[in-house]
């Protein structure tokens, strides 16, 4: 079938996961034309990565996933072994910029023109060495490594009378993840913010090459600790799609239960931290207390506070019995009551609302232009959630029958992101109760038959936004390439825009209202 009236031929991916159509672009013009058509249809770029298939007789391969209204279009493009290059997509989707640069650093396939600055490569390896190429190990003595040679990075300079720069990080005054923020300011007013990330690059994608499916599941759960369920599920969905199996319904509902518990835990933490960043420490300690209770029940029921390794390809690693489900329902009632009280306090606190309102605003047009997903996109009024029915889109099971209600806010500022989080907490608590009382009797795990070759893409609406994992096998049943994609890729540039009309001391609050992952994009 064709999508968007473009010549690329698409086929629907098998399995019960989110709707994904896979297709192969004949040449780079077709890819570019499809990207332009996707942009015109209010689509977004969902992920972009490259891989090296030269050892299997091919060249290089570029994978682009576009988010369309009806689902995801996964377009791949074969590139020659010599001088692999493809057209710059950042002019169509600005969010592609960093993904393209990371792909260039890791695989060595670059855009024709456009921004050629390194992204993940901070000088820890030479510019002509690409870690994800299959001959990388032979070219460099890996154990010894390379001498660290940090290079200058061309930040965009802002000139003019009184304009100056404030460099912040990568080491911060608090114990948080590392990232560098370059502010160009006049007085307290932010003219421009440019981020530089990649300080947590740890070679996750390299580690995946040649791994078996079970080890891959463990690693997927450890890409970003706060989204372990989302990543594990996305990985499992990708493997299941590649192998052509579907987990039993009880397992799907248990996965949804874990994902919603993860969402509630993170939203509770964020709501507290947002109060703390406005110096309302009362809110912080109250929400942290609730989050702690929540995580302790996770620990008791799933043997892990963040529920790591509970979601595996083929189903779930554990099952919940009736007393456990009763404990979940009881906790939902108790926490729901307390969150309602705290929401009233937040809403009626004049000082807090003064900090939240109009701070760090972005509108829906900008969010669409930047391919934004998740909480930040819904806070601009977009109904964009992989769990929710919308015109032309049916969410994958189990969300199709759960009937998730969208949580949106038109304002686009910190207050809107707070409001969306509160609404999502209540909605998730409702879903948890619904799942806990209506769990069907069936097994929770099926065997995943080993598959030699195949591709799969998993899409899961994590608490931060859309988490994607693309998987391909190498012909021997091992993983040839796994690309985990965090929603933060698209949201970090949105943060640069959100802070632009604000003042320097409001940045931490705006940053916290997005609460993006460093580990998830540095990989």
């Amino acid at each position: 079938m064709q999508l968007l009236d473009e010549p690329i031929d698409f086929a629907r991916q098998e399995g019960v996961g989110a709707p994904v159509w896979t297709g192969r672009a004949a040449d780079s013009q077709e890819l570019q034309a499809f990207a332009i058509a996707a942009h015109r249809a209010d689509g977004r770029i969902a992920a972009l990565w490259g891989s090296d298939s030269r050892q299997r007789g091919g060249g290089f391969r570029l994978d682009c996933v576009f988010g369309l209204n009806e689902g995801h279009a996964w377009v791949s493009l074969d590139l020659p072994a010599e001088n692999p290059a493809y057209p710059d997509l950042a002019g169509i989707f600005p969010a592609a910029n960093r993904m393209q640069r990371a792909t260039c650093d890791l695989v060595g396939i670059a855009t024709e023109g456009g921004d050629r600055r390194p992204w993940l490569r901070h000088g820890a390896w030479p510019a002509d060495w690409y870690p994800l190429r299959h001959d990388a190990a032979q070219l460099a003595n890996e154990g010894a490594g390379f001498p660290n040679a940090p290079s200058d990075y061309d930040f965009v300079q802002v000139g003019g009378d009184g304009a100056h720069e404030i460099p912040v990080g990568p080491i911060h005054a608090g114990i948080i993840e590392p990232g560098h923020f370059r502010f160009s300011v006049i007085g307290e007013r932010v003219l421009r913010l440019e981020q530089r990330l990649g300080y947590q690059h740890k070679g996750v994608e390299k580690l995946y090459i040649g791994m078996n499916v079970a080890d891959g599941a463990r690693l997927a759960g450890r890409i970003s600790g706060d989204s372990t369920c989302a990543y594990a599920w996305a990985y499992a969905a990708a493997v299941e799609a590649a192998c052509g199996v579907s987990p039993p319904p009880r397992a799907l509902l248990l996965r949804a239960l874990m994902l919603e518990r993860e969402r509630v835990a993170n939203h509770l933490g964020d709501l507290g931290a947002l109060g703390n960043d406005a110096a309302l420490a009362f809110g912080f300690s109250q929400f942290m207390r609730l989050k702690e209770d929540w995580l302790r029940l996770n620990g008791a029921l799933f043997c892990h506070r963040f529920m790591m390794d509970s979601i595996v390809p083929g189903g779930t690693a554990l099952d919940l019995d009736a007393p456990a489900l009763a404990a979940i329902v009881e906790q939902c009632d108790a926490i729901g009551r307390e969150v309602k009280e705290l929401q009233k306090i937040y809403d009626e606190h004049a000082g807090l609302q003064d900090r939240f309102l109009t701070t760090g605003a972005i509108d829906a047009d900008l969010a669409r232009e930047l391919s934004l997903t998740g909480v930040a996109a819904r806070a601009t009024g977009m109904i964009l959630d992989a769990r929710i029915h919308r015109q032309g889109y049916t969410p994958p099971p189990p969300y199709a029958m759960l009937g998730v209600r969208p949580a949106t806010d038109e304002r686009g500022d910190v207050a809107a992101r707070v409001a969306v989080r509160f609404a999502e907490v209540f909605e998730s608590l409702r879903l948890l109760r619904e799942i806990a009382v209506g769990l069907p009797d069936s097994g929770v795990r099926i065997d995943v038959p080993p598959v030699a070759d195949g591709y799969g893409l998993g899409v899961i609406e994590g608490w931060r936004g859309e988490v994607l994992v693309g998987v391909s096998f190498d012909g021997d049943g091992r993983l040839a390439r796994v690309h985990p994609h965090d929603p933060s890729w698209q949201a970090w540039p949105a943060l640069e825009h959100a802070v632009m009309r604000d003042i320097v001391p409001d940045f931490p609050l705006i940053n916290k209202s997005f609460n993006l992952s460093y580990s998830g994009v540095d990989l």
Partner: protein
Amino acid sequence: MNVFGFLGQMFAIALALLLAPLLTGWVNQCRAWLQNRSAPPLLQPYYMLHKLFLKDVVLAHGASPLFRFAPFVVFGCMVLACAIIPTLSTDLPLAPAADTIALVGVFGLARIFIALAAMDVGTSFGTLGGRREMLIGFLAEPALLMVIFTTAMISQSTSVATIVETLAHRDFIIYPSLAFAGIAFTFVSFAENARVPVDNPATHLELTMIHEAMILEYSGRHLALIEWAASLKLYAYSCLGLALFFPWGIAEGDSFLGLLLAIPVLAIKLAIGGALLAGIETINAKVRIFRAPEFLGTAFLFAVLGLLVRLLLEGRV
């Protein structure tokens, strides 16, 4: 100057040096309790000072001598301020050294040195903090002066000791002017001591800091002196507020018994004041930095109202 007065003065200074970290510890403890957290020990600030005095000093490469002696100047200013504010007794031999206007100047001197030292090493955070501190300072100082003028008009003197003596001696009549001045003074104290609606002493967010941003580069004994000076400043402001608006119980003249009695009275007043401070900090969020001028503008307005009420309604008393 008699021997008793001299001893009383020395005792007041020693007490300030000892009690100031305790007041900070008490406020921190109250804050923790009000936030449902288990509190740090009351003596935590002393442990911190002890630790910092034992640590080596790490100096930035570009640090000039100003950076090194600024902590001593700041500490010295705060000790002097504590010496001329009547805490236990109004019989202070050092009091003629500086009147209330000079007291504001002493606080200003400390501010200028700490802001200069912050800019000295050339980091962007130091400059940021120094700039913000001067913004707060130039708005807070006029309001503080107005408060002091109101009290000075009641006592016909700008000497702190005389003002407190007059106010403590008065018959129990309510001065509406003092109520306005008291509100203004409370506002100014929060801003000057980097407390919550204006600044957040507990923050780790370097971009939002005011006071903390200025002292980011300090370590070891320099940091200890600055932390101690911050405690002394809080103590000085608390004692000034207590002396101006709640002077009852303060010792007058050279009565040894009065001095002894004044100690528990002061301790109780400080404990109540500290708890109130923690309470106000807990229920408030920090204002946007460009709302701080509004906050201090309100303080100035209240101070001027106090002065006007004194001039128009209370006449010559």
